[in-house]
């Protein structure tokens, strides 16, 4: 097995103002399923195409945004390994007991320079619905809504992303698939821990700890069009798209959940291998990099976050 250590984004915990509205949005519109609701009111969701217990956690709060982005490791011993690496790098590590979220094993957590909390864990129970593994159909449960297949990545906004880049490369073994360099410095980075063009991305922003979007993967470009039909039919607040990113090449649409957290559904994107060089963008082509067809940023891209 070539992918070891940190494998992929596992779950993300999002703050929402109205839990029932959020549950309806993420289940009926994005196409996820509710797994369970915890005793503290947090709601746990997953795609029917995911095996693990959950990939989205909704927490009621009076401010929208993101609590934590968590990555799943291959082995429990990886948690000890990365705890040492992170501490040696000079970042404090805390521990979350198994069961703090239903179905999830022990976690380690730390705050990165951009102000976001990152967690690592190695164990997740499986939950239903999930794919069958013997003579599996293409889906076990008929897809609905936008038919999201998995939590794919998040884009987070905050200061000191040069430090984030160094930390993710040196302490967590991520690689930088693409980056945008402006005349006044690094603007954005797309980082991968596996074979996707991005597992997490950061854009430079004055305020720490902000969420730009949470992304779900769809099957293909037609599915992105179907998502756009759903967005219009159900009067979901749309940001931009359907369009394409030059960076990662994903075919995409951006829209907002009922609390104003931006979501993305997308298809495509290239396969990343660890020997690939970093692709770089400059100020002259940044528009094409972000929105390939419009070839310019929309006013919301750099300013609207939760």
């Amino acid at each position: 097995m070539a992918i070891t250590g940190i494998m992929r984004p596992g779950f993300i915990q999002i703050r929402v103002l109205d839990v029932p509205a959020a549950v309806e949005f993420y289940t009926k519109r994005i196409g996820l399923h509710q797994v369970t609701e915890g005793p503290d009111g947090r709601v746990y969701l997953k795609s029917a195409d995911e095996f693990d217990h959950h990939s989205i956690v909704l927490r009621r709060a009076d401010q929208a945004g993101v609590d934590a982005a968590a990555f799943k490791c291959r082995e429990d011993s990886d948690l000890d390994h990365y705890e040492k690496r992170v501490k040696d790098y000079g970042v404090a590590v805390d521990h979350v007991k198994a069961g703090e979220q239903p179905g999830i094993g022990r976690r380690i957590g730390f705050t990165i320079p951009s102000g976001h909390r990152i967690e690592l864990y190695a164990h997740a129970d499986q939950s239903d619905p999930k794919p069958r593994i013997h003579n599996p159909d293409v889906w076990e449960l008929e897809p609905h809504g936008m038919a999201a297949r998995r939590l794919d990545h998040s884009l987070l906004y905050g200061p000191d992303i040069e430090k984030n880049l160094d930390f993710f490369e040196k302490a967590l073994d991520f690689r930088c698939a693409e980056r945008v360099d402006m005349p006044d410095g690094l603007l954005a980075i797309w980082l991968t821990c596996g074979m996707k063009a991005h597992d997490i991305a950061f854009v430079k922003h004055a305020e720490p700890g902000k969420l730009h979007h949470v992304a779900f993967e769809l099957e293909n470009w037609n599915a992105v069009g179907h998502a756009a039909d759903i967005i219009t039919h159900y009067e979901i607040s749309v940001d931009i798209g359907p369009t394409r990113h030059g960076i990662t090449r994903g075919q995409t649409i951006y829209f907002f959940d009922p609390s104003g957290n931006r979501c993305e559904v997308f298809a495509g994107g290239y396969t990343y291998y660890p020997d690939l060089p970093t692709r770089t963008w400059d100020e002259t082509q940044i528009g094409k990099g972000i929105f390939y067809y419009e070839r310019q940023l929309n006013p919301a891209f750099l300013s609207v976050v939760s």
Partner: protein
Amino acid sequence: MAPRRFQITLQGHGAASAYEGERALVALERAQGFGQLKNLPRRLPVGCRRGGCGVCRVRVLAGEYRSDLMSRSHVSAEDEEAGVVLACCIYPRSDLSLRLETPVAVKARGERALQPV
């Protein structure tokens, strides 16, 4: 029955038709699309349209409205009491008069409220 129609005045820029049950910001965006908002030196600030990002902060100078939950990062309880709200989260119950306010995050950076068109 047709929804009740109100007028929302955006001080210094003109007025928009708004309907009962409609977000004030949606009515203003439509008016902007029809060219009914004059002397807008800059783009009408529109973000998530769902109360999370805070860019469409306005002060309600007059009129009755109801509101959705809004992120406390952008509208404090005191703000809300004083009629400082997010235009995307209020629904007119009468004619309204609004004034654009500087978003919290922009104010913290010492910058101006609106983005160049």
